[in-house]
């Protein structure tokens, strides 16, 4: 059992749902990201998605585009991110997922990349532009290294594709809440909970929901029917509004604590209603 599986199973035992904050590594610099990771964990994050910045983030809305640009301007690169993770891992056992686009991983060399990621203490890899059909090469390496390869499902995915991801995916299934790019939203599809229920019929993996979740109320609602809520752009915007690095770190912590409290209020109620 790896850290991701252990975490979900522990949460299930406690009747809690997972809060997964997303931050872009190196925004505004890797030292700050290191401090942000620590404060996220202290404030109630259960897993963390660490975004690897890419020059052409096609699946992202303006907020994560800006974060990626800031990170790249600071010279953030995959080797430097892994160095920071290695340091962070000395202090923490929280599951860490690298979230990015395929090309930087591919250029690094998949064998080399998966080896270094494992050694640094990464637990899972999620490539937003790598559907199961193209993932054979990466999956061979993640399987060999004991890393989880995590796939996305979307409102457009049919049963055939849900089955495909159920077969190929590890760790958890990342359900994209809306058709669109990442970024805060006011409205979700009303049928989101039935869509998540449909995914559950085909997989025993935990199902996390992401894209657009920005308030404690929304996170709590997601927690009432999914196993995890991913919050990215909203967290980045909270940090953007802070004027200095110390404030970025403390505000990130406060925001995540609020999200987690709201999720725990419903999470505990919803336990037992899953099956």
């Amino acid at each position, binding site marked *: 059992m790896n850290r991701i599986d252990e975490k979900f199973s522990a949460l299930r035992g406690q009747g809690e749902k997972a809060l997964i904050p997303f931050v872009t590594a190196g925004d505004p610099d890797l030292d700050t990201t290191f401090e942000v990771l620590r404060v996220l964990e202290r404030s109630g994050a259960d897993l963390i998605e660490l975004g690897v910045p*890419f*020059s*052409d*983030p*096609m*699946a*992202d*809305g303006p907020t994560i*585009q800006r974060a990626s640009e800031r990170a*790249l301007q600071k010279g953030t*690169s*995959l080797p430097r991110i892994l160095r920071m993770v290695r340091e962070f891992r000395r202090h923490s056992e929280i599951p860490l997922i690298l979230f990015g*686009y*395929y*090309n*930087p*991983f*591919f*250029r*690094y060399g998949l064998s080399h990349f998966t080896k270094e990621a494992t050694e640094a203490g990464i637990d899972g890899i999620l490539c*937003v*532009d*790598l*559907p199961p*059909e*193209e993932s054979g090469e990466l999956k061979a390496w993640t399987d060999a290294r004991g890393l989880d390869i995590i*796939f*996305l*499902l*979307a*409102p*457009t*995915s*049919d049963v055939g*594709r849900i089955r495909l*991801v159920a077969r190929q995916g590890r760790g958890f299934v990342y359900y*994209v809440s809306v*058709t*669109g*790019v990442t970024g805060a939203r006011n409205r979700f599809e009303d049928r989101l909970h039935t869509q998540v229920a449909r995914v559950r019929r085909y997989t025993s993996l935990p199902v996390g929901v992401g894209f657009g979740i920005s308030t404690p109320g929304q996170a709590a609602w997601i927690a009432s029917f999914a196993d995890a809520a991913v919050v990215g752009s909203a967290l980045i915007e909270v940090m953007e509004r802070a004027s200095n690095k110390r404030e970025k770190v403390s505000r990130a912590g406060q925001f995540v604590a609020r999200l987690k409290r709201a999720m725990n209020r419903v999470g505990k109620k919803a336990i037992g209603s899953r099956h």
Partner: protein
Amino acid sequence: MKNSKHLFSLRRAPDKQGHFGIYGGRYVSETLMPALIELEKAYGEVRRDPSFRREFRHYLHEYAGRETPLYLAERLTQRLGGARIYLKREDLCHTGAHKINNTLGQALLARRMGKRRIIAETGAGQHGVATATVAARFGLVCEIFMGKEDVERQALNVFRMKLLGAKVRVVESGSQTLKDAMNEALRDWVTYVRTTYYLIGSVAGPHPYPMMVRDFQSVIGREARRQLLAREGRLPDYLVACVGGGSNSMGLFYPFLKDKGVKMVGVEAAGLGLRSGRHAASILGGKVGVLHGSKSYLLQDRLGQIRHTHSIAAGLDYPGVGPELSYLRDRGRVRFVSATDREAADALQMLAEVEGIIPALESAHAVAAVVRLAPRLRRNQAIVVNLSGRGDKDMSTVGEYLGVKL
């Protein structure tokens, strides 16, 4: 190129998942996968449907003005003193470039699929104009994504698109050119995928686009082949075409792939020179990577971040290239050379002066390669060069380059 079996195998690519050897494929977010599978299925059906083919042929003939002439450029041939040079006059197509071949095909397909809204990316604006044109013709809602830098250098085409009823969405992210326009179009598509048809203008992007755009553009090569056979009773010795994403080159090359004696040359944009780092020559200067849905040669740094590109020709100013061209290069079927901004501008002037034809700056790259190639060949040899577009849109760029105020 030893045996013909090898050559026939080239024409069978891509495989079912859209792979040309190691290239191509579908590297997109999950949300788009069902749409691509639906598109692949719909295209597979119309491809074999005689009524669709009739309809497509009809519009190519009656609306786009095909077939285009294969014109023997006698004075250019004399000037260069070598092989006979034939120009495939795609610049005479409606809207002024080969792009209309593909937009007609895809608009007919979109209509059959019941999609009412069309989006497209554009660099030079030729594909944007060709898309806005067919959208107007078939009564479809149309939005064109265009980088801010391109909007500025291609003001004429921006105005044309607006006249045609399209909305032009100015893209201010990244390098503000074609690749960023494509990022933004993909973001729009992933949001409105259920109602929107994404009309990609090059042999790039995820499967089935590289195959489908190639097929729609293959009319160029089929005509050229038939025309030269009728005229000279033989096939050309060389085909020459500029390569940005690669749609005009694949359209010319594809019908000749199995013809052993026909050599093919793709001309990439060397910008300020391949060594300057300011160019757009993906195959000559790039490494294999993944961008915009497919694996291909890509201009990128050591860490896999996409590099900014430069070319005087907006339509070539793109860090990637169609996956099939990467495949044909590795298989040794297409040879790649490059032409600089300066060589392209010189070639444009030469063709204007000796033939009375002003090519697009993109096509001028192909002409520049012919200027170097033709004198080295014998007089009984023949070159077909794809004159993919006309130069009207480039007059302010060329004027500025030559230091002339318009």
